[in-house]
């Protein structure tokens, strides 16, 4: 019997092995390569040379590169704030709908995911461009006289970011709010708490894991998302993501790109660490 169990166990290991090997090769490998690369130097013309140096990291401290991190942070921060303001009430009230409407709303949120994000962004170009859909509408209603310059502005980038990442917040808050025991809210009200106080002490507290995981799920990607700023912002906002891409391709400075990536990864890992500390959970609410 004992032997049989053992055998079963060893077989199980074999079934999981491919997954581990896959992770090791395709996640661990590149990661190690990237970290190693970040300590090398670029060759004069092409490629890299194995001169160990920390110069790539000290270079990040130069004002222009610090500025790109600040820019990325600012954009991620404003995106997250806007998404929280829209997504939290959305997810919360969605959880209060009847089961049938919940299903319908869920489908409406999921449908855009069937189309590539890039194509949906091009849809925004059609809406925002001069003499585009929005311009024509505003002029038709005599609100504006001529075409506005909406595309290739910071606002356009914000719209694109919020649009792309909003579902993650809605879904996280929704899954938290759905688990909420509504009788607790009734109890709080019965015991004399005002609506506002009930919200702050009961509702918000209990949906906090969902809210925070929504914040993580929007903030972390928005630190790295650069194609939205490129497409809707006309390439005029320099974010860490676009800086890394530039260094990889036109700049031909792979070690510096690797160093930037390492710093970005450390920063985002820190966010997730903080999330775990605050909520005492390991998994992100709503997605996992």
């Amino acid at each position, binding site marked *: 019997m004992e032997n049989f169990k053992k055998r079963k166990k*060893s077989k199980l290991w*074999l079934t999981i092995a*491919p997954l581990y090997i896959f992770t090791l090769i395709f996640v661990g490998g590149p990661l190690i390569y990237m970290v190693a690369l970040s300590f090398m130097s*670029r060759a*004069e*013309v*092409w*490629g890299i040379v194995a001169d160990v140096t920390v110069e790539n990291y000290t270079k990040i401290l130069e004002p*222009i*590169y610090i*500025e*790109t991190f600040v*820019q990325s942070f600012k954009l991620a921060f404003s995106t997250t704030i806007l998404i929280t303001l829209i997504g939290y009430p959305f997810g919360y009230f969605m959880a209060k709908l009847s089961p049938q409407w919940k299903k319908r709303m869920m489908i409406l949120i999921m449908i855009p995911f069937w189309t590539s994000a890039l194509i949906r962004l091009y849809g925004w170009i059609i809406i925002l*461009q*001069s*003499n585009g859909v929005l311009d024509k509408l505003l002029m038709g209603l005599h609100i504006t006289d001529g*075409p506005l*310059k909406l*595309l*290739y*502005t*910071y606002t356009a980038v914000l719209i694109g970011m919020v649009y792309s990442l909003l579902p993650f917040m809605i879904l996280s808050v929704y899954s938290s709010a759905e688990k909420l025991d509504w009788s607790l809210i009734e109890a709080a009200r019965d015991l004399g708490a005002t609506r506002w106080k009930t919200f702050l002490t009961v509702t918000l507290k209990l949906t906090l894991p969902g809210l925070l995981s929504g914040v993580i799920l929007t903030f972390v990607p928005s630190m790295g998302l650069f194609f939205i700023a*490129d497409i809707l912002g*006309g*390439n*005029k*906002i*320099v974010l860490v993501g676009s*800086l890394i891409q*530039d*260094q990889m*391709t*036109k*700049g*031909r*400075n792979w070690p510096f790109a690797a160093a930037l990536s390492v710093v970005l990864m450390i920063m985002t890992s820190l966010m997730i660490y903080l999330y775990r500390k605050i909520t005492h959970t390991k998994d992100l609410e709503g997605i996992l």
Partner: protein
Amino acid sequence: MRIKKLAVLAMSALLVGGLLAGCSSNKEEKKELVLFTWEGMFPQEVLDGFEEKTGIKITFSNFDTDETMLQKLADAKGGDYDLVIADDYIIETAIEQGLVSKLDKEKIENFNNINPVFQSQFYDENDEYTVPYGAGIPLIVYNPESVNFEIKGYADLWNESLKDSIAITANYRVINGITLKSMGESMNVDDVDTIYKAGEKLKELAPNIRLINDDNTQNALLNGEASVAFLYTSQVTTALAENPDLKVVYPEEGLGFGIMAAFIPSQAPNSDEAHEFLNYILDPEVYAQCIEYIGYYSTNKAADDLVSDNLVLPDDAAEGEIIQNISAEAEEAHNKIWIEFKSECE
């Protein structure tokens, strides 16, 4: 038991190995040519014509950027690909890295059709390695309806009346280069201080910039998003086809141009076929078809009469300068002033 386990592992390893082996080309009797270049570089008729004429099957392999090409070619140690078409500056590097083989000109009867203006350039001074395929000249194009003065050169882009209305390409060596040109300097200046000075000047351009983009930049001009654009040749051609009223400016400070050229990698598996293909595309009629298709300037003198006028280099345009590889230090400075410039735009 242990042996069985090992056998399972070995089996799985074998399977994976088999998968990888499947990637390498299976040998066929038919002659083959692996062409490595950007997408959309040849009209289908030309490729079909070659296959019909010679029985050589063309396999297309694409890259997005010159850098990717060089990386892949370096990984293959100059093998895998038979013919590569890429930009001038990267070819210089490829030759330096020993990834390019010398041409056997006896096998290319049409070699003399090449316009000498595009030969003996910095990347291949003795014309040993390359055949130019087309030339690009980034030019200023503007809409005279929304610009109230005549644009003559790069310096006019700094004009205050063009606030928030210029679309430019995203290649920093080119944009920094025209800034240097507007200051009377060479695009390939190696002096870091001069580059930083150009950076300061470039920052002053920021308020006029509406869009920085490499792909389909001409659209911004066509849909009214911008009234002036600095475009690559193929984009100029597209823009003019769409709106013939647009004005093209050959900047008075001098042109920057680039040459796309073909070369055969050092370990090309089908070198003979590659020579045959080079000879085929240098044929004036075939070449004219190609150049009309890609919309670049003709580098084939014998084909010039068959090509639309706007794709033949004007006589006074020979004063161009090609962007070349510069020292890592200077490159770094270019990179920096570009990021600073972009942060300044908004």
